[in-house]
């Protein structure tokens, strides 16, 4: 409950106030458009890591969905 409230507040704050004053103009996106500035730069490497750590640890997901789909021993 506490966590979901925290997230709701975070999202609401994000949209309504703080975020609207942040950011850049469309003509200032040269750096953000670079391949190495994407949130996931290497999809296969990210999927590989998610799968390894899903198999070996009790946590998964976060960045995206929980991953899985294996009876990993």
């Amino acid at each position, binding site marked *: 409950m506490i966590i979901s409230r*925290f997230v709701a507040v975070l999202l609401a704050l994000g949209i309504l106030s703080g975020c609207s004053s942040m950011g850049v103009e469309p003509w200032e996106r040269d750096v953000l458009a670079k391949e190495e500035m*994407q949130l996931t730069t290497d999809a296969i490497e990210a999927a590989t890591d998610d799968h390894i750590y899903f198999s070996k640890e009790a946590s998964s997901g976060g960045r995206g969905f929980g991953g899985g789909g294996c009876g990993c021993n």
Partner: protein
Amino acid sequence: MKNTDKISITAALTAATCTLLGTTALQPVQAQEEPGWDFNTSLLYYAESDDRVQDLSLKTLSRRTFVDDRILSLGLTVDALTGATPNGALPQSFPQTFTKPSGKNTFTTPPGEFPIDDSFRDTRVAISADWEQPLGRLYAMNVGVSASAEYDYLHLGVNAKLSRDFNNRNTTLSGGFAFASDQLDPVGGVPDPLTQMRNVRDDDDGNGGRASNDSKEILDLVLGITQVMSRNFLMQFNYSYSDSSGYLNDPYKILTSVDPITGEAVPVPQIPGTEGPSHLNYYENRPDTRSKHSLYTQGKYYMNGKVLDASYRYMTDDWEIDSHTIDMRLRWPIGDDKYLEPHLRFYTQTAAEFYQISLVDDGQPLPEYASADYRLADFDAITAGLKFGWKTGGGNDMSVRLELYSQSGNVSPSQLIGSQADQDVYPDMDAIIFQYSYMFGK
């Protein structure tokens, strides 16, 4: 002359009609990238110390970009797996014999070693298909399906995500879900929880009267916000919820039942003519539901050509596992077409409330839930790696990375009985990850 006149009249009429109908307004205003395929392929070698799990994995991700930013992604992974992880039983100062999961024969572990059934082999094939496209000017959607098959496991999943841009596209809100339905067909059938490890050919039907399969369902929900902080700085915050229900045990994991004074495995009287475990072991049992909450934040910061990628994740669940993960990468360009990328990752988790290294043979009833699976223990892990990437002569991308992953457990002294204090009770592990990737196309 006549022909030319005809063409120009037709062209003029077409233009006039289109203008009247407003069809030109439907044409995309922004420049479109030329549609085409691009391919991301990789070969992964993953190997754990002490002859535990080894995986040779081939992965491909093929993307077809259509006009209007619509993208089809098709994924294929083939894993060849050998070796197993410790089965949960404790090392002893004497040899121990266990019945293999198939129930057809036994294996014996030498003194001082974590018991591992080294006959494990498996091949895993996983496929996925995703479709993403903009919806109007500010929305985008993504839908996907996934499936994977192993000898003893089948996974089927669907997922969908919707996002919307705000604040001049500086803020993106997204929400999505994934649903998976997985079936387990363990070798030798599904063991009854917290029953004694069976003898070889314990029953006539080959499965020891066990069910041949069981299943679980997993629902994931993710809410996220991506925010451009400045020209060089991008951040993401995600909250995710995951609910699993059904058969959540590992059918191959057991616990040693130990003497309450010495802490040593309790011998099982051997009946002549039968073959089976030399000591008392029980199959594990976990609750049949699990809810997880995660908070995740990631930042990307550009500094004079170098890019810092840092993330933190907090996870908590109703099995009382809490975990913290910090992941950092620094992409360091070398000239125009090469880069080095060091990677560090720290992970720590607390134990599940039902994790215990052994059961105690003291005549008391067994607990409702118990597991000695090392993944449910209190442990820390660290990953350190280095990636080198470069552009080929043809303008494609290649990279190699080498990483070391190391786990070390923290078993509470209050869990240790008798001689357990003097021996290894957690199977620490080191693994190497080597990956070669090649991206080409377009």
